[in-house]
């Protein structure tokens, strides 16, 4: 299949006068683990509901492997979905729900499903009404990961999971990628996105503000450089392009932030007797806060 796993073109959703999603266009190539970030209310779930045909776009279109997303009977043969807030039929047991999902789904690897039930330590004999948030999420995750659907759409799938289960989740995502499945992961867990995603889109107030690979994101953003030196400080560092907020953090120690290619800064540093040099790349959290810091009102 040469079609992208997921394509949205000018996708827009308005609820009355409120624009929940404004002109979103993106492609997710097959085989990629794609992170979808944004604060609460940015339009992430609205986007996913339109990609799944649960909500109709006000304008624009979406395709799943070239199939119109509104043709759910065909498009959903190619995907599995974990909703943000999993609600299950309260009177069915976990095993019954997994059976229902497998019987009506796009094809399920039953042996792998049993393995996932073990790994996620899910007690499938209990009726769903007795499940905690995390256990409900596990049922949906097991059902989705056990499918051989080429696209997995996961909407904040780990918000209720404990750290052990979070680790199992990351393993399952990697195994899915190794099998060639595409993963579309909407999440608030930035370390999780950083750990598993190849590319990230950042949404704010219904608009796409960034879409880039993790490396590009880091390159676009400032790195923090700490230099230890003997004798005189490196001269003229403040004028070097890309270098900002140079500060003396101790005797013989400087810290500055660096945006873009490091070569000019390194040439400037060569003039001093540098003993140690540490470059810390920004975490996704810092990048994220850079985008939203002012909007969040901190």
């Amino acid at each position: 299949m040469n079609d992208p796993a997921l394509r949205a073109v000018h996708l827009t959703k308005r609820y009355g006068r409120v624009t929940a999603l404004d002109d979103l266009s993106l492609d997710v190539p097959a085989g990629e683990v794609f992170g979808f970030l944004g604060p609460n209310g940015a339009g992430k779930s609205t986007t996913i509901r339109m990609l799944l045909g649960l909500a109709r776009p006000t304008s624009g279109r979406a395709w799943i492997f070239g199939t119109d997303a509104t043709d759910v009977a065909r498009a959903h043969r190619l995907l599995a979905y974990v909703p943000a807030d999993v609600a299950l039929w309260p009177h069915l047991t976990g095993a019954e729900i997994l059976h229902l999902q497998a019987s009506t789904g796009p094809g399920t690897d039953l042996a792998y499903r049993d393995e996932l039930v073990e790994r996620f330590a899910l007690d499938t004999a209990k009726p769903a009404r007795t499940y905690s948030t995390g256990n409900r999420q596990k049922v949906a995750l097991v059902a989705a990961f056990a499918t051989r659907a080429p696209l997995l759409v996961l909407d904040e799938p780990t918000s209720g999971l404990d750290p052990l289960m979070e680790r199992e989740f990351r393993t399952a995502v990697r195994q899915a990628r190794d099998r060639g499945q595409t993963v579309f992961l909407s999440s608030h867990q930035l370390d999780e996105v950083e750990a598993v995603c190849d590319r990230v889109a950042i949404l704010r107030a219904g608009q796409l503000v960034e879409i880039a690979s993790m490396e590009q994101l880091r390159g676009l953003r400032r790195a923090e450089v700490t230099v230890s030196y003997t004798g005189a400080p490196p001269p003229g560092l403040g004028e070097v392009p890309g270098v900002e907020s140079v500060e003396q953090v101790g005797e013989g120690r400087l810290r500055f932030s660096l945006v873009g290619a490091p070569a000019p800064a390194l040439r400037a540093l060569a003039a001093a007797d540098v003993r140690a040099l540490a470059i810390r790349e920004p975490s996704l959290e810092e990048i994220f806060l850079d985008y939203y810091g002012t909007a969040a009102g901190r």
Partner: protein
Amino acid sequence: MTTARGLSVPAAPGRAITGLALRQLRRTGLIVLGLTAAMPALVATTYDSVMADPAAADGIARLAGNPAIRTLFGEPVALDRAGGFTVWRVGTFVAVLLAAWAILATTRITRGEEDAGRWDVLLASRVPLPEVAARHLAAVMIVPVAAGGAVAAVLLLAGTEPAGAVVHGAGIGLLGLFFVAVAGLAAQVFPVRASATGAAVAVLGGGLLARMIGDGLTELGWLRWLSPFGLLALTEPYARNDVLPLLVLLAVAVVLGGAAIVAAGHRDVRGGLVAAAAGRRSRLVLLGSVEAFAVRRVLRPLTGWALGVGAYYLLIGFTTLSVTDFLTDNPAFAAEAARAGFTALGAVEGFTATLFALLALPVGGFTAVRMSAFVAAETGRQLTLSAAQPVSRFRLLAAEVAAATGGAVVLVTVAGLAVWAGIAATGGGLTLLAALAGAWNTLPIVLLSLGAATCATGWTPRAAGVAGSMPATGGFLLLVIADSVGAPAWVRELSPFAHLAPVPLAGVDWSVALAMTGLAVALATAGVAGYRRRDLHG
């Protein structure tokens, strides 16, 4: 001592809880209040025109001697007065309506809200569980109290005797309070809303049955003391105006309500006095497709409905011969029954045809409830996982409509079989085919209900239940009201019941049946079209 600026510490957090409960009740509460006041008002004010002939009043009063009439319509008391006639004609109906609302509303806003997890936040406040439960029960109780007051008021305004009006109004109100208390206690005992509602509805059905048997068989008349409906009948408004049964009803309601609040203090939040099963063996039958799963979800409620409908129509079957023999022997009474709205009751076929027509009410209600449950699963997001499967919207909705249709066919068939079995057991001669034809004859109205509910599911999902109740319950009420006030013919003919042939007395009117079915299909098709286009909620 420092005071934080802007820190809001409400003096009475409990009042906010009462406010919350009232918000959840006001819509349906006002509808029920309106109906309980309007129906006695209509009958009482039109009494004079119906009973203008003095022989008529005398004739109907003598119907009291027949056990079957007493069983089915309640013991007729003081039919020679507008108040007594009103109590006989609509008293039981109003009582059942109010009781059913009280049960559904109570379990919905208590156990239902708790089940959905919405009480977790509420109970993290300063208000303890027994107080939350008590405030919710008190909020529901406002409606029966108001309804009782309204019934008394309209009967007084219609010029009936004050004592009878007050006794009947108090009885209706107390009966409502009793069922709020029963449902409130059931909501503390059972950890699941459906079980709590089921237990309380069983008390309602059992109470109604005990009253019917107690009314019908003089030697078992004491059974009425065990039934809230029986106690209501024992007050004999406009005749003896006995207050003792009301005091018994009040005492029982107070004890049950108190028990509910005590029970609330002895259980876990989201738990009941009866523990929910922690685990069970999985049953994978009927989980293979969305269609099979729709059937699976309908089976358990269908069993409950079938038991209720079956029991009622079996009782009708048992009493049919007794009623028709009595009416055949007393043609004057048959004429009176016809004046009261029951035609051709003298023949088995005529009597059963009249009662089969009523079948459209519960079965139409069943289809409306099924579609409401489907909408509730959508807004409750249980449907989301199914909607994300490779299943078209058409299949999702069609599976539900098909399961509801199948359930409706089962229910009417059960009713037909029950009537046939009851008549056969008492030595009557209605053929099985005639009984089934009479029952199946109501299916077009049932399908209209389902069609209207499906149409609403597609376009205005919140209204699915109300829309589904329109053709059957709404149509029946329209006919009764139109007949009572002498409305123009075209108003009467808006009701599907005005067009229903009296099967098995007459043959099926196929043109009417096909027209109604066609309209039902058109409504359902419109619903599917809307459902395919709209956003799913939740």
